């Protein structure tokens, strides 16, 4: 629209406001003046207290609800165009599976809507179910699965059309610690192999630090970004969670959440 960029940001949010019920007396300013640029292949976490607008931000980026003011671009396209072009996949806070479909056919849904053939659809779905370790449950119904398993089905579904951007709203919230760590590593592996950009909402500070290139700290009433904490952990491995850099990152995010401008030097916190 404005300038001809050679390489676009994966996500570019400029001066975004979201006000629910504007003008009425139950008006809620869910997002105020959000500015956020995400580079292709970058892993961003959003963290902040309940009600600070994390889900709303994901929804606006995905064009599931309109912005009150401001602009959102995905890979240089406006949010509505990006949605039409299926430039992102989304995993919601609730699994949102269809009870009348088997697990496999839930994962097939986005492919079905794209008009992919039955056989290809099936193969791709089984591949994805293997990835989230649910191959044995392909022909089960969603209500036969635990909450964490349902959430993994939803993740598989969000990966189905192989979108360059993934929006994930607390996808690992319902998982036990072991499954959670395994899923985290799987997600990082997928990102590395496919170069996906991820915006990831979580309430877990260690999870945010472990996964992210940058942790975005938000605060409520009105929902806004207060800090950006860059994380430089390099290649993640089994020992990463034991390193001093990791602990420093956790501390920095915790301080930011408490609203303190941290003093520690590495990693630095950019006050906004």
């Amino acid at each position: 629209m404005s300038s001809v960029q050679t390489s676009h940001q994966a996500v570019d949010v400029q001066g975004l406001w979201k006000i629910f019920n504007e003008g009425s007396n139950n008006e809620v300013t869910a997002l105020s003046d959000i500015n956020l640029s995400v580079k292709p292949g970058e892993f961003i976490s959003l963290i902040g207290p309940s009600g600070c607008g994390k889900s709303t931000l994901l929804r606006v980026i995905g064009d599931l609800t309109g912005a009150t003011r401001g602009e959102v671009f995905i890979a240089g396209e406006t949010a509505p165009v990006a949605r039409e072009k299926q430039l992102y996949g989304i995993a919601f806070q609730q699994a949102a599976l269809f009870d009348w479909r088997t697990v496999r056919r839930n994962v097939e849904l986005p492919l079905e809507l794209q008009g992919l053939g039955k056989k290809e659809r099936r193969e791709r779905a089984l591949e994805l179910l293997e990835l989230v370790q649910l191959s044995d449950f392909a022909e089960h119904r969603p209500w036969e699965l635990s909450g964490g398993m349902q959430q993994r089905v939803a993740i598989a579904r969000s990966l189905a059309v192989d979108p360059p951007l993934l929006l994930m709203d607390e996808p690992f919230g319902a998982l036990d610690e072991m499954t959670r760590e395994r899923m985290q590593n799987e997600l990082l592996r997928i990102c590395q192999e496919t170069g996906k950009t991820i915006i990831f909402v979580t309430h877990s500070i260690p999870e945010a630090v472990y996964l992210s290139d940058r942790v975005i700290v938000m605060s409520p009433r009105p929902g806004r970004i207060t800090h950006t904490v860059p994380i430089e952990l390099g290649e993640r491995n089994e020992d990463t969670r034991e390193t001093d850099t990791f602990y420093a990152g956790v501390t920095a995010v915790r301080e930011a959440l408490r609203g303190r401008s941290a003093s520690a030097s590495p990693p630095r916190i950019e006050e906004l």
Partner: protein
Amino acid sequence: MSTQTAAQSRRTGRFSGIWPPILIAVLFLAAWQIFVVARDIQPYLLPAPSLIVTNFFTDLSLMWAAAFYTGTTAFLGLVLGTVLGLVMALLASRFIVVNHLVTPLAAGLAAVPIIALTPILNNMFNITSRTPRVLVTMIIVLFPMFVNVTRGLLQVKPVQLELMRSMNAHPRTTLKVLRIPNAIPFFFTGLKVAAPLAVIAALVAEYFGGPQEGLGSRIASAAANTAYGRAWAYVVASIITGLIFYLVVVAVEKWTTPWTGRTRST
């Protein structure tokens, strides 16, 4: 938590099977028989179960024919009313204007007493045919079908709609993939109400003249001839007919929608 409730419902499921109602029915019938015999109650007040049963079996072949006639009327009305209810529900869920227009209309139709309607329809159509009775039944069936299916089409979880939107689904696709499957349990809820209601409607519609082959006509003529045992035997046949309609719906539902009632609240 959810496994516990599942286990509980399975256990209560065994006790809420068919045996308790049968036991209660047997006890009730026994008490009724004893009461009528002991107090020497006249049949026009209350015939003994034994009298009803005797009449039931002496009239069995006529009763079959009557149940078949009324059952056919009920079935035709049920099919027509269901189809019409579905079409109206699809339109109502698609266009909000239609919804505002059609809902009061359907409610209005539901409020029309069948008694007021039947003689009019008898005059409008050929009274010697089945047509007015089928139409009455159709109108009675229409309302529960329309209301339930419309609710099923509209009461979709917001997050499921957002998912469809994220996949850039056309409204027609959303209807096919999400709304219609979501409405199926609601459809059966409506049908479970409508099916026995159709039998009642078909039967009551026979009280206003026309062919005399149905259950309703038989009850009326037996009562007019002071054959109270026979009248009651036909009432029993009517109950059985209604019950069969209901049970068929329940069976079809079990067979086609195994997910109904299993949804976890997540």
